[in-house]
C-alpha cells in the first residue's frame, strides 16, 4: 500500500495503482484522453502530465506506478504549461468543426480544451486531412478529428477480441483503420463510439438527430438478452433517440452489445398502436378498446377454464406476467408457460440460474460450455469470459456448435453424450475439470430446449457435483438464458400448474381442438400454425408473428415505455423505468390484463402499479430487493433419461434479430446484411 502526497494531501492507494489513481483518490482531477480504466495503458496522449518531486520533467501519471513516498503536484505552473502545450499540439490537426460534430456537448476534447487549453493557436499552416474509414453500418467516422489515443484499437483487441483495428503509418501520416477497411466484426463494436474521446467515431444511426442537452435521460434495464445490461435511455418527446450503457460493475461494467444499443429504431416501426380484431375477410380490422375488451371477455367467459392457456414471451416484465398469472388463476386454468422455446427448466432455482453470478466468471479457472454461444447470446458476458481467459488461459471446453468465441476453446464434440463420457471420466477434458479449483459449467438454451433437455440438465448437475463445480464456497453451475423475462417468470411460477400443459402440450391440445383460447403475452417465437383452431389473443407491441396469427390484438408497451421489473440470468432483480409513452392507444401491459379481468367480472384487484407490485412482492418476496440476487439453494433437479445422440445446436444464430423489436429494426437488418456480405467476401477470397 504505497503512501503518496498529492498537492499536500496524503493518500494511500492499493498496490499496482498508478499516480493517476492516487491523484483521483486525493480528489484531484487529471485530464486524460488515452487512459481508460478498462483498457491497457498506452501513455500516448500526454495529457495527464503531473510534477513529481525530484523528477527532471513532468511525468505521465497514467503510466507511472505509484510508489511509496512520492510527492506529486498538479497545481504548479509547469503542469499548467505542460497541459496547455499538449492541448495545443492535439488541436494542431484537429478541425474546428464542433458545430457540425455529433460529439459536441459530450466531447472530452471540447471539455478539456475549455478546462486546460489556451484560447488560441499559434499554428498557421494547413491542417492535415485524413480519409474517412468504413467501419460498418454502426460507426460513422470522421478520421480528421482523430487524436490517436488508440482507445478503440485497444478495446477491439483486448475486450472485444477482434484484433482488426490498428494504427498504420507513423507521425503525421498515422491513421486508425481496420484491416483493408473491413467491418468491425464484433457484437460489442459500437462501444468504441463511447470510448472515442473526440468525434472521430460517432454513432451512424444517431447521426445528426439530436444534441445531448435536448434529451431526457432515463436509467433503465435492457431486455435484448438475459444479461440485464444497465442502460440509459435518451428520449426526445415520445421517441427514443439512443441507448447508452450505464455503469454496473457486477453486470455489464460499462459495455453494452450492439443490439442493446441499436435495436431501438425497431421501436418506431411496425408498432401496434390500436387494438385490432380479425374481421370476416380474415383481415385484421382496427377496433376500439371497448370492443376489444368485450370480445376478449366474451371469449374467456364462454370458454371452459380447462380450455384456456397463456404463454408469456421473452421480454415480458414481471408485473404483466404476474397480472396474467393472477387472471389465469381467477379463471381457474392451470395452463400457463413462460418457456416458449420449450426449455426443460423450472422448479429448483439453482437449476435455472447463473449461480456463480456474472462477476463470478472472473474467478473461474476452467469452463465447460454446453449448447451455447455466449458471444451471440450474451455478448457482454462473453467479454468477461475472454478477460478471464486472457489473464489465466483457463481451459474452455465446448459441447455443441464449434464457433469463434474470441478465446481459445477446445471443441469436445456436438453430441450430448459427451456429457456421459465426461461423467465417466473417460474424456480428456475431464482431467482439466478435475484439476480446476473453481470449475464452471455454462448450460445454454440450445441444449435445454431439446427433447432430452431435462436429461442434459440432470447430467450436468451430476457432472457439477462430481467435479467440484458446486462446493460450500463456490457454485459454478450456470444456466445462460436468452430471454430477459424468463427468470422472473420461473421465479413467480409462470409455469404449468397442477395438471397444466406446457407450450408443447398446449400445441398438441390446440391441434386436437381441445384448446379454445390462447393468450400470447408478447410471445412471437412459437409455431402459431399449431394454434389455428384456437382463438388467439395477442398482447404485444409489434406486428410480428404473434400479431399476424392473432384473432385479436391488444396493443401493449415496449420495454422503454413502461416501468417494469426484470430478473436477469443471475436472478438479479432490476427495475426498469419508463422513458417514453407507448404510441397511439397502446397501454401498459399490466393495465390491459387488469381491464380484461374487470370486463369478465373476475377482477384480479391491483388497481395501480404500486398495488400490483405489492402483491407481486408478497407472493415472491425477493422481487422487492432491487439489484440484489436472492441466492439459490443447491437441490436435485433435472432428469435421468438417456441422452439422444444428436448434435446440440445453438439457440441463436442470427445475433442481430432475436425479438420483435430487433426484427423490426432497420439498423439490425443492415448489420445482418453487412455481416453476410463480409462472410460471403471471405469465402469468395478463399
Amino acid at each position: 500500500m504505497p503512501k503518496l502526497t498529492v498537492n499536500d494531501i496524503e493518500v494511500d492507494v492499493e498496490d499496482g495503482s498508478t499516480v493517476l489513481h492516487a491523484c483521483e483518490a486525493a480528489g484531484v482531477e487529471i485530464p486524460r484522453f488515452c487512459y481508460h480504466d478498462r483498457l491497457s495503458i498506452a501513455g500516448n496522449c500526454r495529457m495527464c502530465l503531473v510534477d513529481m518531486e525530484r523528477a527532471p520533467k513532468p511525468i505521465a501519471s497514467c503510466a507511472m506506478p505509484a510508489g511509496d513516498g512520492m510527492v506529486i503536484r498538479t497545481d504548479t505552473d509547469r503542469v499548467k504549461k505542460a497541459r496547455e502545450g499538449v492541448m495545443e499540439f492535439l488541436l494542431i490537426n484537429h478541425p474546428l468543426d464542433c458545430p457540425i460534430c455529433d460529439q459536441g456537448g459530450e466531447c472530452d476534447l471540447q471539455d478539456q480544451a475549455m478546462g486546460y487549453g489556451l484560447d488560441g493557436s499559434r499554428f498557421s499552416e494547413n491542417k492535415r486531412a485524413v480519409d474517412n474509414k468504413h467501419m460498418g453500418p454502426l460507426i460513422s467516422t470522421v478520421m480528421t478529428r482523430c487524436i490517436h489515443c488508440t482507445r478503440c484499437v485497444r478495446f477491439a483487441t483486448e475486450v472485444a477480441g477482434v484484433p482488426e483495428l490498428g494504427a498504420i503509418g507513423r507521425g503525421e501520416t498515422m491513421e486508425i483503420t481496420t484491416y483493408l477497411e473491413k467491418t468491425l466484426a464484433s457484437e460489442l463494436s459500437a462501444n468504441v463510439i463511447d470510448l472515442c474521446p473526440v468525434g472521430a467515431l460517432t454513432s451512424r444511426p444517431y447521426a445528426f438527430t439530436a444534441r445531448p442537452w435536448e434529451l431526457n435521460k432515463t436509467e433503465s434495464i435492457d431486455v435484448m438478452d438475459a444479461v440485464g445490461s444497465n442502460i440509459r435511455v435518451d428520449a426526445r418527446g415520445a421517441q427514443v433517440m439512443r441507448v447508452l450503457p450505464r455503469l454496473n460493475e457486477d453486470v455489464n461494467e460499462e459495455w453494452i452489445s450492439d443490439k442493446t444499443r441499436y435495436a431501438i429504431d425497431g421501436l418506431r416501426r411496425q408498432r401496434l398502436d390500436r387494438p385490432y380484431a380479425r374481421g370476416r375477410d380474415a383481415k385484421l380490422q382496427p377496433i376500439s378498446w371497448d370492443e376489444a375488451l368485450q370480445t376478449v371477455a366474451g371469449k374467456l367467459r364462454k370458454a371452459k377454464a380447462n380450455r384456456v392457456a397463456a404463454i408469456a414471451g421473452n421480454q415480458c416484465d414481471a408485473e404483466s406476467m404476474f397480472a396474467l398469472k393472477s387472471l389465469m388463476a381467477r379463471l381457474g386454468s392451470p395452463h400457463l408457460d413462460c418457456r416458449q422455446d420449450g426449455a426443460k427448466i423450472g422448479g429448483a432455482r439453482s437449476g435455472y440460474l447463473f449461480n456463480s453470478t456474472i462477476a463470478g466468471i472472473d474467478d473461474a479457472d476452467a469452463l465447460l460450455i454446453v449448447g451455447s454461444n455466449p458471444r451471440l447470446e450474451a455478448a457482454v458476458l462473453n467479454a468477461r469470459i475472454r478477460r478471464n481467459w486472457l489473464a489465466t488461459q483457463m481451459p474452455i471446453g465446448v459441447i455443441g456448435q464449434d464457433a469463434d468465441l474470441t478465446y481459445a476453446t477446445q471443441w469436445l464434440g456436438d453430441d450430448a453424450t459427451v456429457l456421459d463420457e465426461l461423467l465417466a471420466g473417460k474424456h480428456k477434458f475431464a482431467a482439466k475439470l478435475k484439476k480446476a479449483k473453481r470449475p464452471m459449467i455454462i448450460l445454454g438454451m440450445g441444449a435445454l430446449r431439446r427433447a432430452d433437455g431435462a436429461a442434459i440438465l440432470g447430467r450436468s448437475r451430476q457432472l457439477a457435483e462430481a467435479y467440484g463445480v458446486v462446493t460450500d464456497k463456490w457454485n459454478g453451475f450456470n444456466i445462460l438464458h436468452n430471454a430477459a423475462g424468463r427468470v422472473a417468470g420461473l421465479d413467480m411460477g409462470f409455469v404449468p400448474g397442477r395438471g397444466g400443459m406446457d407450450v408443447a402440450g398446449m400445441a398438441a391440445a390446440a391441434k386436437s381442438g381441445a384448446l379454445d383460447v390462447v393468450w400470447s403475452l408478447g410471445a412471437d417465437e412459437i409455431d402459431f400454425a399449431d394454434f389455428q383452431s384456437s382463438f388467439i389473443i395477442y398482447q404485444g407491441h409489434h406486428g410480428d408473428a404473434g400479431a399476424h396469427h392473432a384473432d385479436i390484438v391488444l396493443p401493449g408497451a415496449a420495454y422503454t415505455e413502461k416501468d417494469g421489473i426484470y430478473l436477469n440470468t443471475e436472478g438479479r432483480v432490476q427495475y426498469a423505468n419508463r422513458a417514453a409513452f407507448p404510441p397511439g392507444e397502446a397501454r401498459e401491459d399490466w393495465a390491459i390484463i387488469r381491464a380484461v379481468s374487470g370486463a369478465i367480472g373476475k377482477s384480479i384487484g391491483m388497481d395501480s402499479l404500486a398495488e400490483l407490485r405489492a402483491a407481486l412482492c408478497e407472493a415472491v418476496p425477493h422481487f422487492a430487493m432491487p439489484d440484489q440476487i436472492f441466492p439459490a439453494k443447491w437441490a436435485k433437479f433435472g432428469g435421468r433419461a438417456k441422452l439422444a445422440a444428436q448434435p446440440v445446436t445453438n439457440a441463436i444464430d442470427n445475433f442481430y434479430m432475436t425479438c420483435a423489436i430487433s426484427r423490426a429494426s432497420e439498423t439490425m437488418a443492415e448489420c445482418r446484411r453487412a455481416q453476410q456480405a463480409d462472410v460471403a467476401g471471405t469465402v469468395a477470397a478463399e
Partner: protein
Amino acid sequence: MSIDDRIASDQPKSFKFTAENEKEIKRIIAKYPKGRQASAVMPLLDLAQRQHDNWIPMAAIEAIAVRLDMAEIRVLEVATFYTMFNLKPVGKYFLQACTTTPCWLRGSDEMMRCIKDRYGIASGQTSDCGRFSLLEVECLGACVNAPILQVNDDFYEDLDYQTTGALLDSLEADAPLPVGSVVGRSGSEASGGGTTLAAVKSGKSATSTSKKRGSAHA
C-alpha cells in the same frame, strides 16, 4: 493517405516463402521464447521483401500473420511504420537519400537535385525507365560521411552533385562503384588523411604514440 495509397494497386494473389527462406524462418523464430514468435515479424517482413523484388505484397503480410499467429493488422502496422519496408514495387536500384540535418548541411540538396535532374523523380517516385526509385529518409546513421545515399543495401558517402552523377552512371551500366566513400577515404577517417595514431601505422613504440596524441591536442 488511406491504406489504398500506401499499398500497390496490383497485388499478387498468393505468396509463398522459398524453401530456403522457410529454413531461415525456422531459425529466426527459434531465437525467441516460445509464445513470443510475434517478435520475429520484422525479420520475416525483411525476408519477404528480399524474396519479392524488394517490396512486400499483402499476400505476404497475410502469410506472415498466419505464420506468427498475429492479427493481419498488427503485421500491417509494423510494415507501414518503417520506411524500410516497401509496400509498392520499386526499381532495381532503390535509392534512399538521407536529408536529415548533418547530411543536409553537407549538401544533400545537391545530391537530390542531381537525381531529380536525371530522372525527374521526387521522393516516393520511380523513374520512367523503372529502374530507379527514390525515397527521402531520416538519418541513416553515417553522419560523419554525410551526405549519404543508400542504394539497396549499400551506403555511398561524401556525395555531391558530380559524384552522385558518376554513381548513377555506374548503376545505369550495372557496374556499381565500390561501396563507401566516393572521395576515397577509408571508414570515417578525416578527409585529409589520418592525423592521429600515425606512429602506430609506421610501427613506432606506444610511448611515442601517446606523445604524439598529446601534441595533436596542443
